[in-house]
């Protein structure tokens, strides 16, 4: 019985990969949308207000 619990391992990795990838994609997409609504020069906290 070599591959004991391999299904649980794959499921855990798959769920975590999907969650992280989904969250990362949402950050990038929302970031681009929000960035387009802010004038250049006010987009970073380090920009002079």
């Amino acid at each position, binding site marked *: *019985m*070599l*591959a*004991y*619990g*391999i299904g*649980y*391992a*794959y*499921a*855990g*990795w798959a*769920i*975590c*990969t999907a*969650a*992280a990838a989904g*969250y*990362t994609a949402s*950050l*990038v997409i*929302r*970031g*681009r949308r*929000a*960035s*387009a*609504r*802010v*004038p*250049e020069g*006010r*987009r*970073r*906290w380090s920009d002079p207000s």
Partner: protein
Amino acid sequence: MTGTGSRTTRILGVLALVLLGALAAYGLVVSPPEPPPPSGQGDTMRLIYVHVPSAMLMYVPFTLTFVGSLMWLFRKSVWWDTTAGAAAEVGLLLAGMCLVTGSLWGRPTWGTYWDWDPRLTATAMMFLMFLGYLAVRRIPADQSVRNRRAAVVGLAAFVNVPIVHFAVDWWRSLHQDATIGSIDVKIDGLQLFTLFLGFVAFGVATTWLMIHRFRLAWLEDRAEEHVLDLAIAERRQEAGVG
């Protein structure tokens, strides 16, 4: 510059992807499985390479939320309030990963997906409290009122962090105590290397996520201000002022 990326975060992002790819290769293929129960955990050991780094790394963003909340209350620092909110969201992602992988590990190892064990219960409580923290941040209110409410909830939620960490020492727990971090390290060789690779990969990825989440929150606030500025300018023009 558009989006939340910069040269530094692009380098960090590529590094995170390479490290996470290496972690997947080592965690799922290269690293040997343990013997099946009762002498070992079999292939469920592979969940540990995600579970332990996510469990340890989630303390970092939650600590930042604590510091950010304090800094809002004492300094009224918007930068720190934004950091606190961004960090809590990333911390929740890690806590969610920790709970899911822990539950999936528990089924073949303990015979159950969930047990009301002190460590597990405290982690679930912490997850729910930080979820509540994010909900409080979304309640419409004046910015200073919203930030104060969030800071108080952020401080209260952080109380769970040491409880989660020390639960296995303070109470008799089904959850095992520290695998590493003591003199008597309980795993070795390739498994230990993979676990440390997990810490590094998760550390870089967490940093990337927090920077981008911070920049997104900052942009959303500026976008809101910009809309308000435009509306005020329009009204002034209509009224023939300025």
